């Protein structure tokens, strides 16, 4: 499974890690829904740390699309909300 951390690049993560990542991701999503910036920041950093720890960086010349994409480390909740909308942050 390929996971991208925006601003950092892509990681190859074992499928077995999916359950753990999903759990953290749910916490992240709940934090966004409840507008809880502190919980959001903790969850995001936890999630990114997990991907970095479990994954191995893909070579720079890989042209694979990612299965999962994570916001960059310093993202605010607001940025993530925009990221989740079709005409949000991602340039054309």
């Amino acid at each position, binding site marked *: 499974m390929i996971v*991208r951390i925006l601003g950092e*690049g892509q990681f190859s993560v074992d499928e077995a890690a999916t359950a753990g990542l999903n759990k953290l991701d749910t916490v992240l999503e709940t934090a966004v829904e409840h507008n809880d910036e502190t919980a959001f920041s903790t969850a995001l950093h936890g999630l990114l740390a997990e991907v970095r720890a479990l994954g191995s960086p893909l070579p720079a010349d*890989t042209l694979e699309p990612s299965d999962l994409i*994570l916001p960059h480390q310093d993202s605010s909740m607001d940025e993530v909300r925009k990221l989740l909308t079709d*005409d949000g942050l991602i340039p054309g």
Partner: protein
Amino acid sequence: MRLVARARPPSSRLSGLSSRPGRPVPVAAKKLMKGTAARMGVMKRVSLVFKAKANKALDKMEDPRETLDYSYQRQLELLTKVRRGVADVATSRKRVELQMNQLQQSSTKLDDQARKALGMGREDLARAALERKASAQGQLNDLQAQYAQLQGEEEKLTVASQRLQSKVDAFRTRKETIKATYTAAEAQTRINEAFSGISEEMGDVGMAIQRAEDKTAQMQARAGAIDELMASGALDDAIGGRRDDIQSELDMMAASSDVERELSRLKGEITAGAPKQLEGGANGNSQASQATQAQGQAQAQGQAQAQAQPRSEGAPYAPPAPQQARPAAIPVSDLPEPQDGEGS
């Protein structure tokens, strides 16, 4: 100004989501895009948004091979933008560096002024100087934090630009291979995959450029504000060489205390009469250098001179100079000009 323009295709159809042969996208994704989706996790949703962008762009192309060339063109443009972005951040960082140096110099100078003012017994002036120093120091601390951020952005963008370069190279190779062995059925899948991969990277790099741009803009605004503050004299521009009010007051005080010393020297000469003229000349020399010094130093100098005189004068004629009998006996409580005391 945005570096990366958002290309919004006129058609908003999401058919690309399901038409992509490579990885089927769940129908739920369509709802997701409208924000009405059930729980799916941030990671998945973000990746679907990226895929939807790529698919929209793909759908616009009649001939898949056009997609390759068009995309490659945009990749090269983005490479140029990201490199320009790195240069912009570096320029901004250097400006901040310059300002930090100025503020540092200003702070040192104000500290020095406070010391001098206090030495002259002007606590009010010293306080004013220290207040300005605190303000300069505050600005400096803020700048340092922002400087670190800019450095971080610069590094990130540099890495992003290198990664994009690798991907663009890989894409070009793949593009040529696909074109050479083009058979409509198989090419479509391979093109879509390569396109999605690169377009995801482009989206990522595009956002990184925007972030760096925002930070740079904030930084520029701040740098401009500090420049204005310095121009107004509020922070005392040590670089400009302009004399600030604290400095001119200090100079004025130093000048007036020179006058006072000169006056008391003259008074001393007059009361002591003609025989003391030689000694008066020696005093005049020491006064000039004493003008800005503290009492203790003035005393030490006075003593040193009193001790030095017998040696130089005493050798040939050995007249019983009046000072000779007293050097060790100068009282500690003597005033700043001990020789005046001797004279009168």
